[in-house]
C-alpha cells in the first residue's frame, strides 16, 4: 500500500485536518476590517533606502558619489556641494546636494550601503511601496532623508504598520568594517538620530550552524532559536 500513503500526506496538510498554513492572510494594508497579518521580516532584509542623520541632527551624506559609482543598476544620482559655512548641512566640507534613487531600476543589492564611508545610506526593511507613476518612482532627498525623529518618512503609497519602521536593515551592521566573521566584533558604527548606537547583530542561530538557513517555521516553533532573533546582546 505504499502507493497510497502519499494521498494521506497531502490530505493531512489541510488545516482542518491538522495541517497548517505557511502563508498568512495579507491584504496589502489598504483593506479595512480584514484580518491582516504580516510575518516578521528577516534581520537583513533589503528594503528601501534611508539617508541617516547623526544624533545631533546633521546629515551623514558627504556627497562623495561612491554609492552612485558602485551602483550596478545605475539608479543613484548624487551631486555634492560645499557646506554653507554659516549653516552646514553635514559635518565636514561637503554635503549631498542632490540625492536621487530611481526605484524602477534599483535592485536592492545594498552595494551602496557597503560603499558608503559615513554610513549615510542604509536600507530600511520596507518593501511595500507600489507607486503608480514614474515620477513617484524617483525618491529624492526630501523622501529619503530621515525626519527629525530619525524615522523614515512615510509616503502615501507606502504600506507601513506599527513597528515596521523601527529597524533599519541589519545588513549595514553585518557588513560594516568592524563586523568580523562572527558578527560579534567591536561596535564601529555611529549612532543614528532617534536610535542611538545600534547593538550588533546577534550570533547566528544554532539551527544555522547545524546546517542551512533557519527555517522561519522552525524558529517559530523552538523557543531557544526564537530568542536569537530578538537581539539580546
Amino acid at each position: 500500500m505504499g502507493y497510497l500513503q502519499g494521498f494521506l500526506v497531502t490530505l493531512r496538510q489541510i488545516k482542518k485536518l491538522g495541517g497548517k498554513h505557511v502563508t498568512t492572510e495579507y491584504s496589502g494594508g489598504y483593506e479595512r476590517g480584514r484580518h491582516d497579518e504580516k510575518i516578521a521580516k528577516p534581520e537583513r532584509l533589503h528594503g528601501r533606502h534611508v539617508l541617516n542623520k547623526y544624533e545631533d541632527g546633521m546629515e551623514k551624506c558627504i556627497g562623495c558619489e561612491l554609492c552612485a559609482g558602485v551602483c550596478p543598476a545605475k539608479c543613484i544620482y548624487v551631486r555634492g556641494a560645499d557646506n554653507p559655512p554659516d549653516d552646514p548641512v553635514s559635518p565636514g566640507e561637503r554635503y549631498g546636494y542632490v540625492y536621487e534613487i530611481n526605484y524602477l531600476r534599483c535592485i536592492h543589492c545594498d552595494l551602496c550601503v557597503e560603499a558608503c564611508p559615513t554610513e549615510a545610506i542604509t536600507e530600511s526593511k520596507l518593501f511595500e511601496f507600489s507607486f503608480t507613476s514614474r515620477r513617484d518612482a524617483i525618491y529624492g532627498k526630501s523622501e529619503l532623508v530621515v525626519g527629525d525623529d530619525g524615522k523614515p518618512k512615510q509616503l502615501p503609497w507606502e504600506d507601513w504598520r506599527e513597528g515596521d519602521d523601527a529597524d533599519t536593515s541589519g545588513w549595514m551592521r553585518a557588513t560594516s568594517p568592524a563586523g568580523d566573521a562572527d558578527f560579534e566584533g567591536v561596535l564601529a558604527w555611529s549612532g543614528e538620530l532617534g536610535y542611538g548606537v545600534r547593538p550588533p547583530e546577534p550570533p547566528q542561530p544554532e539551527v544555522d550552524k547545524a546546517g542551512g538557513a533557519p527555517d522561519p517555521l522552525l524558529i517559530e516553533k523552538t523557543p531557544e532559536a526564537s530568542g536569537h532573533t530578538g537581539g539580546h546582546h
Partner: protein
Amino acid sequence: VSGLFAQASATGDPLYQGDIDLAVVGITILKVVVCFAFLLIATMLMVWFERKVIAGMQNRIGPNKAGPFGILQTLADGIKSFFKEPIRPERADPVVFRLAPYLAFVPAFLIFTVIPVGGDFSNGNAGVVSIFGHDTYLQVADPPVGILFVLACSSIAVYGIMLAGWSSGSKYPLLGSVRASAQMVSYEAALGLSVATVLLVAGTLSTNGIVVAQDTMRNWNIVATGILPFVVFVIAATAELNRPPFDLVEAEQELVGGFNTEYSSIGFALFYLAEFMNTVTMSAVIVTLFLGGPQAPFGLDVPVIPGWLQGMIWFFLKLFLFLFMYVWFRATLPRFRYDQLMDLGWKVMIPVAFGWFLFLTTLRVTRDLDWSRMGQLSAGIAAIAVAIAGYAILMIALRVSTRQRQQQGSLH
C-alpha cells in the same frame, strides 16, 4: 443470448410519449436552460473548489479576496480574460483556430444533457417526476443510445484539443496536441471496454435505464461488475480529461502551455472552462455508471424530503466525492512520463479491461444459457485462463520485439 436486452424496453422520456404541446416544449426549454446554467455555475465553483483545496494541501490559503471565501474568484478571472485582447498568431489557420475552443467546450455540455441528476428512484421508481402535470425525467434527454452518445461526445472533445494545437501554427502546441490525441485515443479503448461491462450488466444503453437497474446497493455497478471496471474507468477517465497525473498535454515544464499556448482571451477562457466542465461531467458519468446516480445508498428514504429532491441530493453528494478525488489526485500524484503513460494504457489498462470483459461475458452468457453452477464456474475459469494466456503471448511478443530492436541498435 435471450433476455440480455430484456430490460432495454427503450421507452425513453415519458414527456414525449403523449402529444407534444406547448407545455412540453416549455418544460424542455426550461430543462435546457437550467442544465446550462447549472453546469456553468458548477464549473465556476469547481475551479474555486479545486484552487482552495489544492491550496490547503500545499499549506496555502488559496483565493480569498473576491467575495466570501474567494468564491467569486473564477468570475473575476473570467471577466478579466474576456476583456483581454484575443491574439491570433500570423501562421495560425483562422477558421480552425477560432473553432477549436468551441469543439472542446460544447461536448462538455452535451454529455451532461443525458445525465440523470435527480428523480424519484426510491422503491423501484423509474425516476419519473411531475412538472406542471407532465411526467418526465430529471435529465434533458434520454436517448436510447445514451452511453454511446457520451463516448461520442468525449471523442469530439479530442478534436477540439487536436485542432487547437494543429491550427496554432506553432510547434509547442503541435507537440501538445499530438500527445493529446495519442493519449486520448489510447485510453478511450480502456474506457470503452469498462463501459461495456456496465452495459452488459445493465442490459441497456439508456442512462436512465442504467440508473434504474442499480436499484439496490448490491446492484450498483461498482459491485455488480466487480470493482475492476470502476478502477479502470476512473483511471482512463482521468487520462481522457488530461488531468494530473495524465496532464502531459499541457505539461508546463516541457511544452510551455501545451495545446493552448497560443490562445488568449476568450479562447483560453473557453479551454480552461471546458477542462473543468469536463471534470464535472465525467464525474457525473462515473456516478451514473457505477454508483447508481441518484439512487440512495442502503435504500435510505428520508421521510420529509420529496423523492426527487432526495435523488438530487444523493447525486450531488456522490458527484462531490469524485470532484474531490480529482483534486486530490492533482495535489498528490506526479506526472507520468510519456512512455509510462503509453505502457500503462496499452499494456495494463486495455488487457485488464478486456480480460475482465471476457470473464464477465462468459459468466453472463453461461447464465443466460441456463448452464449449471459448475458449468458457469468452469467457463469463468476458462475465460480467465484464456485472458492470462493472451496476456502471456502479448508479453512474449513485446519481449521479442524489444530484443530485436536491441540487436538492431535502435534501443540501448
